[in-house]
């Protein structure tokens, strides 16, 4: 099957970004989420994360992706905080316009009932 080249921004943590332990993981997540229009917390090995990335790219959106397994500094902390936030699984988790949307099922539901596209437009992730 023909694969599109990856077209999303992958965020790699810089050495000076943070100490080894985040004091408030949830606040950290919120900060990361509000930095960009569409933020996805993912893991490079997770296939459902791959599906969700494909969904946004297919719609013409350019999401900011944080691969938690590639973040040796704060990856684990963020993952734990996401499990607390979401309940069962940690990834994928989507934020649009700084607000939590949810996991794959919420994203699919909102796309089908037509609320996802207006949300993306409002956040400035989609034009026309």
């Amino acid at each position, binding site marked *: 099957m023909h694969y599109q080249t990856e077209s999303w921004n992958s965020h790699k943590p810089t050495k000076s970004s943070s100490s080894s332990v985040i004091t408030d993981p949830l606040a950290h997540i919120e900060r990361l989420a509000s930095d960009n229009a569409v933020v996805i917390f993912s893991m490079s090995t997770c296939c459902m994360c*791959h*599906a969700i990335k*494909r*969904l946004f790219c*297919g719609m013409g959106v350019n999401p900011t992706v944080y691969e938690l397994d590639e973040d040796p500094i704060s990856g684990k902390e963020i993952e734990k905080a996401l499990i607390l936030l979401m309940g069962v699984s940690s990834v994928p988790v989507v934020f649009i316009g700084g607000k939590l949307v949810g996991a794959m*099922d919420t994203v699919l539901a909102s796309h089908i009932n*037509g609320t996802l596209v207006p949300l993306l437009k409002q956040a400035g992730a989609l034009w026309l």
Partner: protein
Amino acid sequence: MWEFCQTDGSLDLFGWLVTARISIFIEVIDMITPTTQFTSTSTMGVYEPIHQISMWDDTFGGTISPNTDVCIITQADAKLDDKCEYASDRSLEPAEDNQTAKSIRDKVQRRLAQNREAARKSRLRKKAYVQQLETSRLKLAQLELELERARHQGLLIGGATANMGLCGNVNSGIAAFEMEYGHWMEEQQRKNSDLRNVLQSPIADVELRLLVEDVLEHYCNLFRMKRDASRADAFYLVFGMWRTPVEQFFLWIGGFQPSELISVVMPQLENLTDQQLAEVRNLQHSCQQAEDALSQGMEKLRQTLAQSITTLAAGAGSYSSQVVSTMEKLESLESFVQQADHLREQTLRRMSCILTMRQAAKGLLAFGEYFQRLRALGSLWAASPRKFT
């Protein structure tokens, strides 16, 4: 008359034999204890053999076993003798020799002890026998399901289907799902008929809504059943193993493809406004995007699994970390099946929102009939003889 609940032929014959023996016993007991109350033979015939045994048991306190009925009859006779003996002994006792009386009493005691022992053994035998019967019943139900499935799939010789169908390795969660699916299909046919009848009459929207909601809820029940079954075996769900090969040809991750559903149903609908047409087009587009995303996720899963398999060290044990992580990847299939069903449910609900109640009812009927025809074609194909050159 003797009527038996038919489970299958063998039980029926056995049941007759058991009941025939019990009837002989009843007549014997009748002679011995004419005052004993028990249910008449005609009512006994209506129950299943097992119930007959237990009823019998309740009445007479555990002296039954089909294998020892002859002994019981002998013992019953012995009891009769004992009673007669004892009765005659009583009348003669004061005048008899103490020795003879003692030996007779000993004989009686011995006989009674033997009877008690026999009764106890017979109760144990009966318990074991009933347990055996119940497990056999379950096994029979499972085998019947396997047979049904193998028949539907046309029993491919040497294929994976044949192996799974004939091995007897049917997961109990899957067996339960197949049984429930059978019921679901029957219920679905009834609902289709309801829709057909209702659409022929000028019924109020309010009542139509109830029926539409009911049909939608029925689909949700199916998705719930599939969710439970996918925990038992996600591969079974993905490949739609309970369906005929023709149906499997159209499968997308374990079920119908939502965008295709819309294509099937739309030509059957009339009087759609421009607004509705636009919304349906949007819905179909969104479905396609969601389907593509999930399909690509599945493709990624295949790729990572393939990589994982090639890097599995030769001679890696079943529980090595490599094998464990590969198994975990396989487990993620379950989430894809669930998301696919979630997409189907959302699409159905959205369609019923866009359409008027009457249109929604017509759409659901068209959808239901389409699948009935597809399944019928599948069964026909599976049953028809193959041409060999």
